């Protein structure tokens, strides 16, 4: 190659040299990004359900609808682990040596926001949960130091990796419980098969020991789903099939329900929370956004066209946003002029609304095939309050 390339190079230079009145020869470059995610940038997951080996996430500037860039994921691509500072993130991924078969490798790859280039890799046990992505599948600790990965083989466990050391801390068995809901820098909650929740406590090195277990918090007749939303540093809100809400606090010895009521009141008329990511919470404003539709309990994953907005302090519905098109996932930006994001599984479009007015601002189209998790620029969990 070397002789040919040299000829090629010389020819290229000769070709470019004459600069007349015409358009000038251009220099090809590579774009870079801000050090930290701006408040109105948002990641959108495309699990690529029809081509699951080619999952990815798209980064959108919601202020102008610009597609800023993307990262490629692995088989059954799930949520990104966004560092709360917004400057780096982790892509947990599963790969097969022959695409759809062969040897399996599960790996965490660290990326910097400013260049979206794959950096450090951490090989983890090849047990990562595979399925429809949820918020509880994997995450980072609130200080961004550790990655937490839910495993299902169908044995249940959690892998912890130290991102700064680039090494796995360990795999910790969590029999009967799964999913990961952080409630502080070194603790998280899990949901258990009998309707209870369990705490998991991490030491400074990231080692996990089991914490307290609650009594069953919900009944088999009206289970809470795994589509929860964080509403405080130590608090998550869960929704049952019948749209009861439970706020569970994980700051104490064991998970504890600190509030419980019905979103739809005594006469729900079939109204129900539904979708893949059916709720969002604006921390500073204390507002809860819930995606609603009418249907039976078997419709809990169905799309909705209304977003009900609640003031979490008063539990009152203070606003209703009528989406222009149905959605299965919603999210809100965390700044003072929040945007509401909405996508529907199977529709390659991100819709962007003004959260205050409910007015649709713009849409970004041609986004792959099957959008699931929406991840706005993160907020510091310390800013969440209790």
């Amino acid at each position: 190659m070397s002789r040919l390339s040299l000829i090629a190079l010389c020819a290229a230079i000769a070709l470019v040299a004459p600069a007349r009145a015409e358009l000038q020869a251009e220099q090809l470059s590579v774009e870079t990004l801000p050090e930290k995610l701006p408040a109105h940038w948002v990641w959108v997951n495309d699990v690529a359900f029809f081509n699951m080996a080619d999952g990815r996430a798209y980064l959108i500037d919601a202020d102008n609808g610009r597609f800023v860039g993307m990262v490629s994921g692995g088989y059954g691509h799930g949520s990104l682990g966004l560092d709360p500072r917004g400057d780096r993130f982790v892509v947990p991924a599963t790969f097969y040596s022959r695409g759809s078969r062969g040897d399996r490798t599960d790996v965490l790859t660290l990326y910097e926001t400013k260049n979206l280039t794959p950096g450090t890799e951490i090989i983890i046990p090849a047990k990562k949960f595979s399925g429809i992505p949820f918020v509880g599948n994997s995450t980072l600790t609130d200080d961004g130091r550790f990655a937490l990965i839910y495993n299902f083989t169908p044995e249940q466990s959690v892998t912890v990796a130290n991102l700064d050391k680039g090494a796995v801390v360990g795999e910790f068995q969590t029999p009967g419980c799964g999913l990961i809901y952080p409630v502080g820098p070194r603790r998280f909650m899990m949901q258990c098969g009998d309707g209870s929740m369990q705490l998991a406590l991490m030491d400074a090195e990231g080692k996990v020991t089991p914490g307290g277990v609650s009594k069953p918090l919900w009944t088999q007749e009206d289970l809470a789903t795994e589509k929860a939303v964080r509403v405080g540093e130590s608090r998550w809100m869960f929704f049952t099939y019948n749209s009861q809400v439970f706020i569970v606090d994980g700051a104490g010895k064991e998970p504890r329900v600190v509030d419980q009521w019905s979103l739809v009141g005594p006469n729900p008329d079939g109204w129900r929370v539904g979708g893949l990511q059916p709720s969002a919470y604006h921390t500073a404003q204390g507002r809860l956004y819930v995606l609603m539709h009418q249907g039976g309990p078997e419709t809990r994953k169905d799309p909705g066209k209304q977003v009900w907005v609640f003031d979490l302090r008063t539990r009152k519905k203070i606003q209703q946003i009528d989406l222009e098109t149905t959605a299965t996932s919603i999210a809100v930006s965390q700044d003072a002029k929040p945007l509401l994001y909405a996508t529907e599984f199977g529709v390659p479009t991100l819709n962007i609304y003004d959260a205050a007015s409910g007015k649709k601002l713009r849409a970004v189209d041609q986004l792959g095939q099957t959008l699931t998790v929406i991840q706005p620029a993160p907020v510091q969990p310390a800013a969440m309050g209790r």
Partner: protein
Amino acid sequence: MTRLDRIAEILARQAARAISRRSILGRLGALASAASLPALPVARASAQAAKAPPGETGDPASCDYWRYCAIDGFLCSCCGGSVSSCPPGTEPSPITWVGTCRNPADGKDYVISYNDCCGKAACGRCICNRNEGDTPVYQPQGANDINWCLGTQSGIVYNCSTAVVLGAAG
């Protein structure tokens, strides 16, 4: 009831059937007697389009077919398999989720095992998601949001889903 017992119960319900002999036998090791298990059958690919088996009505290539009341994925009936067979070259998952569906032909409820077929990429045909009785993923035995290509030799890559009658419910 201890947590381990709960998992055992869960897995008992989800496993439900010895499908992939080598996989389950591999796990059981010397504990299980192979003689008690029927051989894994093979079936000639039918030249016909999907038809309901005897005693049933409806179209197994349609999402509203009765057995699919809790399914989520691509119907094997559209992918070279059938309601009870995997497409050629795929591997059935030995463990899976189950649902309970009512057969309109006899008015009875049946336990249906939604075994995934694995080892080739998504078939992409006849996508179907119904959630009657579907549970959250922390109750895995009834959860259709999980990729059930687990415990296979070929790995977790998902091709399509079957809907096998295990027996009458209750």
